[in-house]
């Protein structure tokens, strides 16, 4: 039964968890444009991972990538859903936003490239480092985007 489940999950690319291990699967929403609430979702993710007993350095990596993604949503998108899935071996964070999308992902991934306006820059955001931080601090990073619809990020951090 377990083997069948594992095969089915592999087909669907769902990570398989040990049945008795402490896993987490939950979603959060981020409201675009609201800098006063920026960081709330990342803080929740951090505290969930701490409670699950994930090692501190990996919790901090997850906090960094989720914060940068959260700031991008607040800066550019209307809203986003964040899915956090913790399975044995990895922390999976997915951010799916409704926003303008990124016309040129290669360019957006370049350090220093930013389309942030003056208001965002004055707060110290929009330095063109967010996506680089996400890439550098996650073990696996996928980004896709559709103009006029939104951007989809997936970050995986491996755990022992």
């Amino acid at each position, binding site marked *: 039964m377990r083997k069948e489940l594992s095969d089915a999950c592999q087909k669907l690319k769902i990570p398989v968890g040990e049945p008795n291990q402490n896993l987490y699967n939950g979603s959060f929403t981020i409201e675009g444009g609201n*800098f*006063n609430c*920026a*960081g709330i979702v*990342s*803080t929740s993710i*951090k505290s969930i991972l701490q409670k699950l007993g994930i090692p*501190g350095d990996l919790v*901090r990596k997850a*906090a*960094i990538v989720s*914060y*940068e993604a959260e*700031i991008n949503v607040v800066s550019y998108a209307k809203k986003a859903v964040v899915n956090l899935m913790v399975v044995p071996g990895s922390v999976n964070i997915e951010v799916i936003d409704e926003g303008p999308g990124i016309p040129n992902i290669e360019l957006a991934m370049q350090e220093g490239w930013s389309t942030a306006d003056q208001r965002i820059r004055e*707060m*110290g*955001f929009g*330095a063109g*480092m*967010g996506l*680089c*931080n996400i890439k*550098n*601090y996650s073990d696996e990073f996928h980004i896709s985007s559709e103009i006029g619809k939104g951007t989809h990020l997936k970050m995986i951090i491996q755990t022992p």
Partner: protein
Amino acid sequence: MKIEDLVQALQLEVKCGKDYLNREVTGGYTGDLLSDVMGNAREGYIWITRQVHQNIVAVASLKELAGIILINSCQPAPDTLEKAEAEKIPVMVSGLPAFEISGQIYNLLTLAG
């Protein structure tokens, strides 16, 4: 070296987080770009900046920084203090510019070994 040692040596004005000044400072980072600090500061560092809005608290808290020093007598926004107190992040103010306060902290931390 603890935060309270820096407060005393550099005559910093403590704006909030008085209960957490016995935290150990393992290093420092100076910068006003939040993603720069997010990417390059390390846990236990003291952060020297002139940003005063509440988002600096989230960065310090998520990165587990020791505390924040505002330069040039910049005053933290009221909601920054409120949030910093809740997140247990000490916020201090120095009258010195970033270059000078960073240099002094560097010397103190280096001499302290």
